[in-house]
């Protein structure tokens, strides 16, 4: 499925930052042999990161819902927790 907006952003970035496109082209194909162990490890990593993102979103939601309980501050030169 093509998403025109994403394609437009991608093309803009390609034009603006050719170095990034070059790096993407250079490292387009992973050099490591995709053994079952490598595939399994990468799958686990993806799932792990998705879990972390979900936890971060949940935390963000709780911070937005109760802003008064989540605003500790500290000044340079000394700790000053609220």
């Amino acid at each position, binding site marked *: 499925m093509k998403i025109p907006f994403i394609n437009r952003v991608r093309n803009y970035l390609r034009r603006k930052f050719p170095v990034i496109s070059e*790096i993407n082209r250079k490292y*387009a194909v992973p050099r490591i*042999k995709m053994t079952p162990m490598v595939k399994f490890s990468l799958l686990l*990593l993806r799932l792990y990161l998705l879990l*972390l993102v979900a936890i971060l979103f949940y935390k963000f939601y709780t911070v937005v819902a109760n802003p008064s309980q989540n*605003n500790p*501050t500290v*000044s340079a030169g*000394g700790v000053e927790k609220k």
Partner: protein
Amino acid sequence: MNIFTGVYYWGKRLLKSLQLFFLLAGPGIIVMLADNDAGGITTYAATGAQFGYGLIWFLVILGPVAYYVQEMTVRLGAVTKRGHAEAIFDAFGAFWGWFSLLDLLLVDWLTLVTEFIGMTAALAIFGIPPYLTVIGVCAVMGFMVLKGRYWTWEKIALLFCALNLVYIPCAFIVHPSVTDILKNGLIPHFPGGFNNNIFFFLMANIGTTIAPWMIFFQQSAVVDKGMQEKDIPFGKLDTAIGSVFTVVVAIFVIIVTGTLLKGQPIDSAAQASLELMKTNKYLGTFLAIGLFNAGFLGAICISLASSWAFGEVFGWAHSLNKKVKEAPWFYATYFITLITAGLVVLIPGAPLVLITLFVQVIAVTLLPAALVFLILLLNNEEMMGKFKNTLWLNIVDFTIVIVIIILSTLYGISALFPNLFR
């Protein structure tokens, strides 16, 4: 050949090996002592204040753990001649490469902010305003890299590493009971039983012992130093010595706070220094100097880890052996990271506690990925040849990596939800 000739040649060989070791030593000792950064010293000080000598045994275990993780970067760097960021791009493709690089940049920058928090807090004890600390640190760090030689940078860094040992005389000043240390510190047990609080401290100590920037830093340093495959045994020895020093420093910090501040709630090493000044002026002063030095050591390594990683991936010249004209982007990244991190600390009312907590969370997103990539690369025969992991190393490394991932993840989650493990 008589016995004297034998001893003579043995001595000559030993002297030559020692000379070679002193030439090659550096990255391992620096990374391990820089691991005891401002956050690390705070964690150890708080651990000692909470549990006395009770968790010293745990730090003794963490020494070999740190060694086995960092030893992999020595082999990978010496064999592939690539830093960790470039190795990830090359082996796992652009997606994982960008993820690691951008995550590293964020983690490094946030950690650098925490180092500045530690340094400004330490020097504030002596009445030095934060802006002067930031300017001074940036100037010294600028001088260190602008000398144009990796060798010069490394030797100055080693000098600061030596200053990290200031905690050892501190421990002798407090006259701790050696019997208590041996009895309560070295026999594995959980003071007061295994509860949420002790679990939190165990996780915090692991979190400070293994950090993602260390993996990237040491591998890049090995490459910049030009270490070859034949130098790997010396690189391993360098790392082993560093891991011993890091544990020794951590233990001595615990002995100091465990002797004098046991039972007091300690939130930061700066607070511990102020408390200790009430008992012994010199002791508090030493601890504050040590805290500044810890933050400084962390800062010099972390800012370089980012610059090296960017240089590797973008193909810029990225060596301390290059002059500014030859590697402008490398030095630009270094100074931008450093100065912006320093400026954040000077912003009145900046959410520095939130930044400190955020570091732990972001580090948790990068550490497992960096460790998994490390272990997969070390098992790649095509890349590593005879230096790939043996079965024994795989058993040890996999166990360490799995335990670190679980505990550091729980630590990151506990930073988000502080009451979860307390």
